[in-house]
C-alpha cells in the first residue's frame, strides 16, 4: 500500500463521497427514466409470455432451456465477485479492495435479485412457483430435495439473505455520516436507516465483530452458491454437463465475470463521481491482475473438458465437444474462448492494465464472453445429446431479447439509483485504510 495517495485525508474522503449525494441533474433522471422504460419492456414481454405460453420464447425439444437460464447463470456469476471482494479479500486483509467493496457488494445484491427473477420467468407455470416451497398441505406433497433445482432455491435465497445483511451492516456507519451531514426529510430517512448509530466505542466493537463474522459466513457461500448452480448441469446425464470439474469451473467463471462487471461499473463511476483519488488506478490494476488469474483458470477448465471427452472415447461426449468446436454454435464457442481467455492476457502488459480504456474494453469483452460461455454450455449439450434423431437447434426470440434487455435495465436502474442516493464508497473503510493501512481490527 506504499503508493497510496498520501494527500487523501479523512475530510477529503467524506467530501468527495458526500458530493455524490447532492441533488441529481436532469441527465441523471433521464438515464433513470430510460432504464425504467427498459424494465417495463422486459416486464411487458414477461406478461405476454405468461398470457400466451412459454412457446413465445425460442425453446423447443430438445433444447428446453434457453436464454432465461443462461441469464440466470450469468447474473448469479456476476453476483459472485461482490462477496469475494468484500468478504474473502477482507479476511485476507487485502485492503486495496476497500474503495470498491461497497459498489461491488451493491452489485452483488442487485445481481442476485435479477438472477432470482429468471427461474420464475423460465417456468412453464410461473403461477405455481409456490410448489417449490415447503408449504404444508393436506396432500402431504413435499419437495424433491434430490433435485439440483431445490438446491438452487436454498442456495440462492441464502446467498441473497447473507449478502444483503452483510451489505447493510457494512453501510451503517456511512449512513450515520450522511445523516449527520443532511437536513430535513433526508435526515429523517437516514436517521431511520442508520438504526441509531452513534459511533460509540461499544457500537464499533460490535460492528467490527459482526462484519468479520458476516465475512466468514459469506466466504463459503461464494464457493457453494455457484457450485450448486453448476450442479444443475453436472448432476444431469447430459453429455458435456455430466462432469466433476463443473463446480470449480463455474466458481472461477463466476468470479471472472464478476470482476469484469466490477470494472465495467467502477470505471464510469470513478469518472462521473470524480473518485480518481479514492478508486485509484492501482485498485483497478489489482482487479485486472485477478482477472488474468481467473481467466487462466477458465482456460484450463475449457481444456480439461476437451481432454476428458477425448480421453473417455465415448462417442456421445466426443460428438458434443466436436459440435462445440465446429458445429452450428461454433461462433459462440470462439467468442467465449477469445473473450474469456485471450483478451485478459493483455493485462500482462502493465500499461494496458493501467489504462482505463483498455480495462473497460476488456471488461466488456469478458462479460460478453461469459454470457456466451453459459450459452455454449446450456445450448450445445442438449442440442446434440444421446438420440441423434431428436437433435435440434435453438434461437432466442424477440420476447427473450426483450426480457434480457429488461434484466440489464433493471440491474443498472437499481445500481444508479443506489449510487446517487447512498454512499457508493465505504467512507469508514477508506478511513481505516488511511489510518493504518489495514483492515478492521
Amino acid at each position: 500500500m506504499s503508493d497510496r495517495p498520501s494527500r487523501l485525508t479523512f475530510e477529503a474522503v467524506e467530501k468527495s463521497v458526500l458530493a455524490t449525494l447532492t441533488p441529481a441533474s436532469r441527465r441523471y433522471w433521464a438515464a433513470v427514466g430510460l432504464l425504467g422504460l427498459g424494465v417495463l419492456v422486459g416486464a411487458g414481454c414477461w406478461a405476454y409470455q405468461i398470457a400466451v405460453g412459454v412457446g413465445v420464447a425460442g425453446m423447443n425439444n430438445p433444447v428446453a432451456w434457453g436464454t432465461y437460464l443462461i441469464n440466470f447463470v450469468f447474473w448469479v456469476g456476476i453476483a459472485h465477485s461482490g462477496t469475494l471482494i468484500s468478504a474473502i479479500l477482507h479476511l485476507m486483509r487485502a485492503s486495496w479492495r476497500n474503495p470498491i467493496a461497497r459498489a461491488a457488494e451493491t452489485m452483488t445484491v442487485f445481481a442476485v435479485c435479477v438472477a432470482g427473477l429468471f427461474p420464475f420467468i423460465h417456468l412453464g407455470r410461473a403461477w405455481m412457483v409456490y410448489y417449490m416451497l415447503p408449504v404444508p398441505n393436506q396432500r402431504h406433497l413435499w419437495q424433491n430435495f434430490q433435485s439440483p433445482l431445490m438446491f438452487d432455491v436454498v442456495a440462492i435465497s441464502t446467498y441473497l439473505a447473507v449478502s444483503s445483511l452483510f451489505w447493510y451492516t457494512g453501510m451503517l456507519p456511512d449512513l450515520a455520516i450522511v445523516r449527520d451531514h443532511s437536513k430535513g426529510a433526508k435526515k429523517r430517512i437516514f436517521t431511520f436507516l442508520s438504526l441509531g448509530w452513534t459511533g460509540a466505542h461499544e457500537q464499533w466493537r460490535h460492528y467490527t465483530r459482526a462484519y468479520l463474522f458476516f465475512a466468514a459466513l459469506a466466504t463459503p457461500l461464494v464457493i457453494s452458491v455457484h457450485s450448486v448452480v453448476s450442479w444443475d448441469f453436472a448432476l444431469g446425464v447430459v453429455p458435456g454437463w455430466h462432469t466433476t470439474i463443473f463446480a470449480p469451473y463455474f466458481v472461477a467463471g463466476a468470479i471472472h465475470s464478476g470482476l469484469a462487471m466490477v470494472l465495467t461499473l467502477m470505471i464510469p463511476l470513478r469518472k462521473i463521481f470524480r473518485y480518481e483519488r479514492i478508486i485509484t488506478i492501482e485498485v483497478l490494476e489489482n482487479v485486472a491482475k485477478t482477472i488474468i488469474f481467473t481467466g487462466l483458470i477458465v482456460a484450463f477448465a475449457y481444456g480439461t473438458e476437451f481432454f476428458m471427452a477425448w480421453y473417455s472415447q465415448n462417442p456421445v461426449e466426443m460428438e458434443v465437444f466436436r459440435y462445440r468446436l465446429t458445429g452450428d454454435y461454433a461462433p459462440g464457442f470462439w467468442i467465449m474462448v477469445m473473450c474469456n481467455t485471450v483478451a485478459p492476457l493483455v493485462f500482462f502488459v502493465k500499461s494496458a492494465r493501467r489504462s482505463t480504456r483498455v480495462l473497460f474494453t476488456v471488461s466488456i469483452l469478458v462479460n460478453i464472453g461469459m454470457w456466451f460461455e453459459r450459452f455454449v454450455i446450456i445450448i450445445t449439450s442438449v442440442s446434440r445429446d444421446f438420440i441423434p434423431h431428436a437433435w435440434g437447434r435453438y434461437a432466442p426470440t424477440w420476447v427473450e431479447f426483450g426480457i434480457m434487455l429488461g434484466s440489464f435495465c433493471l440491474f443498472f436502474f437499481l445500481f444508479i439509483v443506489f449510487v446517487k442516493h447512498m454512499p457508493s464508497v465505504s467512507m469508514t473503510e477508506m478511513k481505516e485504510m488511511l489510518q493504518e493501512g489495514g483492515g478492521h481490527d
Partner: protein
Amino acid sequence: MDRRTFLKLAAMGSLSFAAGCSAQPDRTLFSRVQAPDDRITGQGLWYASTCRECPAGCGILAKNREGRAIKLEGNPLHPVNAGTLCMRGQAALQGVYNPDRLSTPLIKKEGRFVPLSYEDALAVIREKAAEAARKGPDRVTLVTEMAGPVLLSLFETLLKRWRSRSPVVFEPFAYESLKLASSQVFGVRGLVSYRMEKADLLVSFGADFLETWLSPVEYARRFKQMHAPGPGEQGLYLHVGPYAGLTAANADRFMPCRCEGEAFVALGLLREVLERRAASVPWDVGGPLKRILAPYHREAVLKMSGIRKAHYDLLLTRLESARKPLILGSSGAGENSPATDAAVCLLNTLLDPDLALIDFVHRHAVERAARRREVLKAFRRQTDGGARVLLLNNVDPVFSMPPGTGLQAILQQGSLFVVSFSSFMTETAALSDLIVPVAHPLESWDVYESKSGIWSFIQPVMGNLNRTRPLGDLIASLALEGRAAREGYRAHLIRELEKWGVIRDEAQWVQAVQKGGVFDLRLPEGARAATSPDLRPSWSWAGTLASAADPGASGTFLAAAPSIRLLDGRGANKPWLNEAPEPVTQVAWQTPVLMAPETAARKGIHPGDILKLGTAWGELEAPAYLNPLQHPDLLVVGIGQGHRAYGRYAEGLGVNVTDLLPPGVHPLCGGPLYRASPVSFALTGKRSKLAATDGSRIQHHRKIALTVKAGAVQPVDKGQGAHGLGMEAFPLALPLPEGYDPERDFYGPHDHDGYRWAMVIDLDRCIGCGACAVACYAENNIGVVGERGILEGREMAWLRIERYFDETDPMRVLFLPMLCQHCDNAPCESVCPVYAPHHSKEGLNNQIYNRCIGTRFCSQNCPYKVRRFNWFDWPWPAPLNLQLNPDVTVRSKGVMEKCSFCVQRIKAAHQKAKDEDRMIRDQEVVPACAQTCPAHAVVFGNLMDKASRVRRLAADPRAYQVMGYLNTKPAVFYLKKVIRDV
C-alpha cells in the same frame, strides 16, 4: 356519498358482476338426457363398423363414450385387417369431427353459395334430373367413390328412373394395369389378392403394399407373417423400382432402376425363367413369348433398366432357389406398367403353375372402380351443350386429375347442373351448383364388400353430429317410392341383403352387425366360375408385353407417389395425418421434391432450396429434399397436398403434383399416368425450412437401432457383473430388483407391487408405418402443433418413429419407435424439484400434470428425449374437441407430458380384475400403439410375471435396451432387426 347512493352502487355493482358470469357452460356433459339402454356413463361402448378411408374396407370397432365416438380400433374378427388399423383409419374420426365439415346443403346463386334445406335440395335434384331425363336418355351421370354393392345398386335404380346409365365408380388409384394383366393372363377381370404369408420370396416391381396398394393393412400383416423371424424359415423380400417409399425401405434389398425400367427387369427375368423352366410351362406359350422376349437378354436388361448387375443376378439366383416365390406387380403409374404387370403375371404362372399363392376368390373391392378412360369419358359426355345433371358422390376429381383434363371447364358449363354429395368444400364441390353434405360413414348404415365374399357392415357408431343426412337415405328417397322411400335406407339395406342371401333374416342381421359383417359368404355357383383362373393360350398379353418402351435418354422423370398418410389427398384435411411425418422423409405438413443427392449436387441444390418444376403440362414450386433411396434421373413428389380448398388443414399447404401430370390415359390399360417426362427443375433462389422431425439421418454408431445378421443371433450371456460399463459392453439390465448390481448401482431397486409394466418392440417386425403414433394422438389427446410448431421443433408426439439410414449400408433404412422408456432408474425423476415425474408402484413413470410447474429439467435430462412440453394451449377447434378421450387429461400450457403406457387402460384393467378378484392377465392391457400395429411389432405386459410374453421376449437373444449403458434400466426392450444376407 350518502348512504342511499352507496346502497344503489353496491346493488348495481353486484348485479352487473353476477350478470357478467355465464351461469352454466353451453354444452351439457352428456349428449342426451335419456341415455340408450346399453349406455353406462363412464364406460365405453364398442360398435363394429367398416373403415371407409380407402377402398380396402378394414373392419373397425369404434369406442363410444357418452354418445361420442372417441377412438377407432381394428375389428379382430375381420378377415381383412384382423384387429389393426393404419394411420388413415385411426384418423377417420377427424373426418367426423372436422371443424370444416359442412352441415347444410348449399346452392350456388349468382356465384355464391346459400344454404337451403334438405327437402329443397332434394326437390332441386328431382326437378333438374327429371328435366334432363325428359330431354333424352343418358342425361344424368353419377360419379361415385367406391361404395358398397347395395348403395351401388340403389344408384343404378335411381339412374334408371332418369333413363340413364350405371354409376361410374371413380377412384384415383384404380389399378388399371393390374386389371388388364390379370384379365389377359389369368382371364380374371379383377384384382386378385395374394397369399403373401405363404411365400418364401417376395419380389415387388413397385407395388407399395405397405402404404396404399390394394389393402395395405392386410398386406402388412401377411408380409410380416412371411418375413418376421419365427419358428420356420423366413422369407425374403426384394424390391425393384426407381425410388423407395416405405414399402421398398422394408425390403431386404432395394434395387433401384431407372424410371420405367422395372418392365425390362421383369421381362428379362421372364426370359431367363422361361429358358430354365421350359419343361414345366403349363401351356404352349413358347413361340410367341420367346420371340417377344428375345431382345431382353441380360446385357440389354442391365442397360435399359439401369439396375445394378449384382442386383439382377441376385434376383435370378433367388428366383431360381425359391420354392414358393411370389411376384407383385407395379403401382400402375407409368408407361411401362402394363408390360410390367403382364410380365409379372406370367412370371408367377411360370414359377408356380398352380398359382397357389394367388387368391382368385377373395378379390379386392376396388376392382369395381372404372378405368380412368371411362371416368374421363363420363365427364366429357357432359360437354354436348344439352341440359345435363352430374351427381358426384364424395369424389374430388378436380383435385385428383391433372388440370389438362379440362375438368374445371366441364363442371362450370351453364348447361350442366352439378350436385356434390360432399361433406367438405373440396375443389370439386366449390365448382358445383349444389352441395349436399352427407353423414359420415361412421354415422350411417351401409354395407361394403371389402373383398369378394367379405361383407363388412357399416353402422352408425355415434349419433349424427351436425344433423346431416346419410347418403343412403337421400338416395332412397330419390330412387324408391311409397313405403320403401319412407322407411329409409336401413330397411332397404336389410331387404336387399336378405334378397341377395347375405343374411337370412333380421336375427342374423343383428348378429352380423354385432360381429361387423358376414365374412365368409359362399358365392353362388355362377359367380364362382369367373373366379378361377382360366389360363387360355390367348396371347392377348403379347401386345402388352411388347409395349414396353425404352424411354432412352429422355431426361429426368417425375414420379407422383401415393402417400401412406394422405392417400390420394383425401386425408389432407385431417390434422393428425398432416402432423405425422412421412415415414421415409420425416417431413410433415409439406410436400418436398425428393431427389437423389448426386442430382442435387450436379445442380448445386441444397435441402430446402425452392425449386421450380416444369413439365409440358404445368409447373409448380416446392422445396428440395435429398433422398439417397432413388435413381438419379428421377424426382419424386408425394400426392395429397396442394389443395386449393378442403378446409383449414389442407388449403394452401404443400403442392399438388397432379398439376404436372399428363392429362391423357395409357393407351393399353386406360389408366392415368403418375409419371411425367421430361421434367425441368431449376433453383428459384428462394429457400424454405423443411418441417422435418429428424435431427440426424444416421445414428452416429450409437446403441439405438441395432441390427443382427440372420443366423448370427447368439444367446447373450446375461451373467451378472461380468460385463463392462461401456456403450457396447453394458449388459441388459432388467427394470426389476434382479437388474440391480452393487457393482454398478449406488441406489437400491424399487419395490413393485405385483406388476412391472414393460414393452417389447420387435424392430424386425416394425415397418415404420406410423399407425402407432397416430393411434397415440387419438388415445391420449395429444396436441397438434402445425407446420410452424414442427419447424420450431415442438411436435408433441409421445411416440415417434425414428428413421435412420444404416451407416454401414446407406441403402438400408432402420425404423425405431421411440417412446417413454419408463426407466427403473429414471433420470427425469430425480431432477424435478416438485416430484411431478413419479415412479409408480407398478414401475410406471407417471407424469403428474397438475403438479408440474414447467422447469423442463426432466426433458433436459431425458436421454431419450421423449418428454414433450406444452409450449402453448393447443387448439382443438370445435367440434374436434368432442373426440377427446374423457379418460385422459387435456394438458394445459406450461406442463410436461409424455407416454404414460396408456395408464388409463391399465387402470381400467385393474378395475375389472378387482371386480373379478384376480390378477390382470397377460395381454389383457393393450396400449393404443400395440393395439393398432399392423405388423404386431409391439408387445406389452407385466415383467414380474415370469410366464408373460414380454418377459419371455425380453430374454430373446435379440433383446437390448437403447443406450442401456446409461444404466437407466429402461422398461422398453427392443429386438434387433434381422439383416438377411443378400
